[in-house]
């Protein structure tokens, strides 16, 4: 009965935290001891009813506040993810993406692990310490129904979720004809006699160009071959961009960062030019070859070391037909590399005079739309720009920095803008659709839009979308002020689904909870969508990490990883135990009270800069330069060979 009364008093006090229950209990007991002459001993039924009634009433009236204040919201998801990844056997990532090669990791106290597909089995490579690696190649392992995990020949273990590829036309090319590539489905959509036909291409088509004779050149992220019409040229995996000048094709690659010049008349490689940073956009401006890098935030002239620095990555790069100007879409221009004000973006198109090699104009686009994602430049003075976050196609007058026309598109999340023979096409990966602007006709290649795609790209009233900084669900590799009092680097969100809680401070128990952030801090959305959090979750589940050449790590590296105690927090198989630590416990120079979520090390190589505030530019620096107190692992235990093995292991993840 004392407990029931204590709950009532606690409810009356009104604090939505549970700790004061101790004080209210003691107060009730004390008052009863002092003032009640006789001890009231209720019947069991009375006591139980009083207790349950008080608890139910308090829970009903104040439960939501308590859940929020005590950080219990989403705790079920957090505990479920932690349990799934820390029990054995376990596998990470929990989702198998059928459109790309990947390495999955299994953890079990077992002699063998295998992934069992419909009609094939993929044995895990034992790496020691109970860790197994599965080198999945969608070309070799046909999966249509399910994937099950087999441990020591026993198939009782749960199945993995499968993300089946769906058409996602994003970028394309125009010339004698128009073509669009769909990377997940290895498909090339070609405009043929007023209609679109789909034809298969090699693994991971990432970009295309059209030759004068109508042949289409296609670059592939996962296949080493460059397709030229019906022929092929061996280039190497990791092709991400193409540019054409006459019979010369420039192929931008990320494995390693380079540009390969190909002569399509002889189908031969003319030259390979290494780049200082991984490219993502390449274009010819006259004779000059320009390359934009998302990681370095630069636009470079190939063969020169005077790259222009923007402080933000190029969302898109194109050049005018004259070759005099280059146009770069940015989310902001921060030439000092600073974060800028809190949650600040200032989207713009930067105009570069290629001869003078300087910025001659900056056209702020916030008034025209949000997230300028595709640019077509018919001449030096006019641009056609698609805005992915506001579903608009805007004609921009370069000289006057003004919008001349605006088309509200019937498709969402427009990306590429393609123009040929007086026809303009805008491509939507979200709807797997290509819209013919002049004919106002849309061709769709999937029955339903991809769930959550629009939610991720849709702008809030502040003009900011998830995709603004997490560009195409990756990262802009930039620092932002997001209210921590100091800049933080953007996290890559690919492959994070199923690793609750989220963000560096573990401040969001679910991905969908980030919707509250958009509503509270970024002004919310114009469009009401009841299940937007669930849509965001669904979209991010489909965004897995991509690596042109997945690598199975060496066992020696696993051994070094364990000996250096990395595994204590970066636990197998997801390389995180999904736990948090106070920043100060790891980095004694930090005296603030933030906690730090243990990040997964999967995809580590592609997620620089490292550590909580991006203080380490390389993995090497994380291990050897930023742990003077030896609280971040026990690297000192490793000899030189062990250190090299550990570094190679981390690079391979």
């Amino acid at each position, binding site marked *: 009965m*004392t*407990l029931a009364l*204590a709950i009532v008093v606690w409810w009356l006090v009104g604090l939505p935290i549970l*700790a004061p229950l101790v004080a209210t209990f003691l107060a009730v007991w004390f008052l009863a001891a002092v003032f009640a002459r006789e001890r009231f001993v209720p019947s069991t039924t009375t006591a139980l009813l009083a207790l349950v009634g008080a608890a139910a009433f308090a829970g009903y009236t104040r439960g939501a506040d308590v859940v929020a204040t*005590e950080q*219990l919201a989403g705790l079920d998801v957090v*505990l479920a993810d*932690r349990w799934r990844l820390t029990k054995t056997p376990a596998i990470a990532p929990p989702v198998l993406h059928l459109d790309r090669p990947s390495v999955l990791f299994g953890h079990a106290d077992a002699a063998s692990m295998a992934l069992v597909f419909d009609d094939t089995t993929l044995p895990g490579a034992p790496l020691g310490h109970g860790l197994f690696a599965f080198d999945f190649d969608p070309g070799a392992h046909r999966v249509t129904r399910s994937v099950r995990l087999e441990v020591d020949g026993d198939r009782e273990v749960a199945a993995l979720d499968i993300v089946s590829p769906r058409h996602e036309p994003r970028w394309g090319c125009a010339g004698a004809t128009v073509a669009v590539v769909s990377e997940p489905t290895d498909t090339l959509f070609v405009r043929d006699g007023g209609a679109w036909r789909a034809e298969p291409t090699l693994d991971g088509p990432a970009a295309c160009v059209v030759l004068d004779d109508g042949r289409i050149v296609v670059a592939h992220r996962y296949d080493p071959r460059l397709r030229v019409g019906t022929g092929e040229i061996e280039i190497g995996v990791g092709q991400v961009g193409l540019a054409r000048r006459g019979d010369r094709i420039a192929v931008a690659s990320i494995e390693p960062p380079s540009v390969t010049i190909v002569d399509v008349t002889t189908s031969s490689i003319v030259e390979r030019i290494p780049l200082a940073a991984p490219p993502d956009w390449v274009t010819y401006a006259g004779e000059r070859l320009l390359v934009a890098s998302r990681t370095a935030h630069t636009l470079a002239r190939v063969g020169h070391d005077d790259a222009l620095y923007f402080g933000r990555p190029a969302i898109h790069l194109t050049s005018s037909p004259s070759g005099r100007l280059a146009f770069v879409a940015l989310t902001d221009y921060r030439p000092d590399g600073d974060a800028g004000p809190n949650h600040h973006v200032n989207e713009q198109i930067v105009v570069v005079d290629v001869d003078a090699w300087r910025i001659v104009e900056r056209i702020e686009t916030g008034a025209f739309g949000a997230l300028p994602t595709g640019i077509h430049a018919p001449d030096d003075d006019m641009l056609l720009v698609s805005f992915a976050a506001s579903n608009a196609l805007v004609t921009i007058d370069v000289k006057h920095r003004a919008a001349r026309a605006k088309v509200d598109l019937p498709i969402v999340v427009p990306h590429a803008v393609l123009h040929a023979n007086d026809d303009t096409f805008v491509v939507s990966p979200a709807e797997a659709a290509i819209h013919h602007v002049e004919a106002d006709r849309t061709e769709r290649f999937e029955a339903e839009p991809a769930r959550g795609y629009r939610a991720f790209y849709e702008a809030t009233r502040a003009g900011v979308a998830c995709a603004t900084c997490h560009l195409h669900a990756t990262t802009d590799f930039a620092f932002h002020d997001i209210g921590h009092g100091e800049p933080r680097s953007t996290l890559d969100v690919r492959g994070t689904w199923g690793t609750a809680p989220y963000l560096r401070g573990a401040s969001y128990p679910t991905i969908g909870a980030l919707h509250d952030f958009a509503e509270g801090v970024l002004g919310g959305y114009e469009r009401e969508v009841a299940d937007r959090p669930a849509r965001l979750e669904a979209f991010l589940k489909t965004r897995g990490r991509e690596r042109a050449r997945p690598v199975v790590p060496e066992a020696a590296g696993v051994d070094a990883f364990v000996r250096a105690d990395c595994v204590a927090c970066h636990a197998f198989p997801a390389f995180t135990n999904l736990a948090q630590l106070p920043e100060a416990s790891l980095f004694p120079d930090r005296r603030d009270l933030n906690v730090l979520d243990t990040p997964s090390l999967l995809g580590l190589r592609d997620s620089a800069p490292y550590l909580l505030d991006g203080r380490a530019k390389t993995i090497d620096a994380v291990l050897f330069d930023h742990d003077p107190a030896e609280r971040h692992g026990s690297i000192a235990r490793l000899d030189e060979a062990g250190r090299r093995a550990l570094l190679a292991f981390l690079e391979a993840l």
Partner: protein
Amino acid sequence: MRPLPITLALFGAALGFVVILAPDAPLLNELFRARMSGWVAMAALLGSLSMPLLSRFGRVAPWRRALGVTAAVFTTVHAAFVLPTDLVPDLRLLIYEPLLRAGAATLVALVVLAVTSFGAVARRVPRWKDLHALAYVAGALAALHLALSPHAWAPAPLAVCGLLVTSVLFRAADKKRW
């Protein structure tokens, strides 16, 4: 048989044994000691709270008290392991951080219960039985502390909550034995 020395010795020996196994690395050592002492305290508290389940097999009240006092002692040890380290970089977190707030409140409740558990004090405390229902508040707060503990075994909060509810219901149903 004197239950309290036995439980203190047993739980102390268990903690001493596992602490010997603690890793050398400073942070991992702190984490290990924190976790192990927390588990020992939790085990003692659960043992105390689950005594009603065993009451039909004999007189368990002395063991209940012994385990409760042991829980208070090892909760104090747990706090002593954790508070001087950077795992709690600022004592204000004992108020602001739900995890630490629940832990601190549990400690306060258990210390009150332990202090009022011994003969002379217990006899002078009015409404002693009413006061010692505070053990269930302590159990609930300990479960909350465990649920929010980022390094805890994930199913543990469910197990602890299940045991707590079972214990409360059992005690209510079997009240005459107490």
